[in-house]
């Protein structure tokens, strides 16, 4: 791990309500997934990493620079790509025009080189057929790709993607995973999601956030390992189950402290995540 991202004891409070209450993790080359329920502080943490928001306390070091200083912020922003959770677009602009506009903001001033770069990212996310269309005329999935394309301008060393697959259909999600996996080769990608499938599919490292704190940071395999021996199938909800739900085949999948002689199952990332976050409100079947 080269430590492109170092976060130590970072906090952020909005109106006395802590959004991030002491997050710690480090991320190097590859894809790191921030996993957590709604309101866990993922977006706030990513906004701080994108230098859009300043932390109240703690230490943040990105690409070897301190975002608290203007020179550090500028150095980071020059090597940063950011896709917010709800990217905004000038809808009257064409796809090409909007990405070109962001490219100017990213200081790509030479017209020919800039247009080459815009065409490159448009090809990378598969938007070439609609590059001349106005943004208001393209679908939500296409707009998501426009957001990703602008984040990839200038071949950034650090790419921050806030819920890039939210609201996408399964086919588009797979396509996004492929793109994210590709851009994660040789650079640092940090993405947030509350979908464990995304993490299992593309992330080399996972950080579980809950109520503003990082509960786990490590590989997905290490997270899954935490649930080993704690998932079993039964006809009813087990007494030691923290969570239980009926499968499509009619059996109840229990996650928790397995009784002796239980039919143990191989845990998934979802099982481990649920055990860690401990949502006891999940519907129990009997």
């Amino acid at each position, binding site marked *: 791990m080269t430590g492109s991202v170092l976060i130590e004891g970072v906090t952020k409070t909005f109106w006395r309500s802590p959004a991030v209450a002491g997050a710690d993790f480090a991320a190097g080359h590859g894809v790191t997934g921030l996993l957590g329920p709604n309101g866990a502080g993922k977006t706030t943490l990513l*906004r701080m990493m*994108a*230098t*859009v928001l300043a932390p109240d306390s703690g230490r943040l070091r990105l690409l070897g620079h301190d975002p608290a200083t203007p020179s550090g912020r*500028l150095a980071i*922003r*020059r090597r*940063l790509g*950011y*896709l*917010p959770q*709800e*990217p*905004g*677009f*000038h*809808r009257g602009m064409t796809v090409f025009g909007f990405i070109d*506009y*962001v*490219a*100017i*903001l*990213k*200081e*790509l*001033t*030479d017209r020919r*080189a*800039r247009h*080459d*770069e815009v065409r*490159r990212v448009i090809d990378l996310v598969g938007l070439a057929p609609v590059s001349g269309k106005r943004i208001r005329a393209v679908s939500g999935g296409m707009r998501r790709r426009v*957001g990703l394309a*602008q984040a990839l301008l*200038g*071949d950034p060393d650090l790419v*921050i993607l806030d819920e890039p697959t939210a609201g996408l259909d399964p086919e588009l999600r797979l396509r996004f995973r492929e793109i994210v996996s*590709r851009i994660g*080769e*040789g650079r640092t990608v940090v993405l947030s999601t509350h979908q464990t499938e995304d993490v299992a599919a593309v992330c080399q490292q996972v950080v579980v956030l809950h109520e503003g704190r990082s509960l786990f940071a490590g590989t997905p395999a290490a997270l899954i390992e935490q649930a080993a021996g704690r998932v079993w199938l039964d006809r009813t909800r087990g007494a030691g189950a923290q969570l239980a739900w009926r499968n499509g085949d009619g059996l109840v999948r229990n996650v928790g402290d397995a009784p002796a002689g239980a039919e143990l199952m191989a845990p998934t990332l979802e099982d481990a995540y649920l055990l860690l976050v401990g949502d006891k409100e999940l519907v129990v079947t009997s």
Partner: protein
Amino acid sequence: MTLTVATQAPAGAAVGTLARREAWRMVRHPVYLVLLLYFVLIGGVEVVNLGLPSREAVRELGTVLGLLWLGPATFFAANLVASSARRAHAESQLAAAPTTAQARTLATCLGVLGPTAAATGFAAILWLVEHAGDTLDRAQGPPSWP
């Protein structure tokens, strides 16, 4: 994966390019173009009423287009262009770019010079037309009574 990476300009260099882009956005803004069409129509009616090629018609056209169109059209277009990022909820996305909000504001202010330059050029043409009319009048001498 082979990537072609565009070179980044030194700090602040994007302001000039951005100002040209903002000027282009303003003069292509629907408000600007609709108001242009409106005042061209008004000016056209005035010109027809006064009869060409009278000096009053040229002056009327210059006043309508130069004063009535340039001011409101540029004002509305510049405001809408400047506030478009906020209205599109793109502020947080653009805030992560190396060009700061202050630099973007400066670029928008400079961009206003674009439509102003266009209108100034138009006014200069009208002035030349009117001046040419004066010269023609002097060459023809004072009007004689029928």
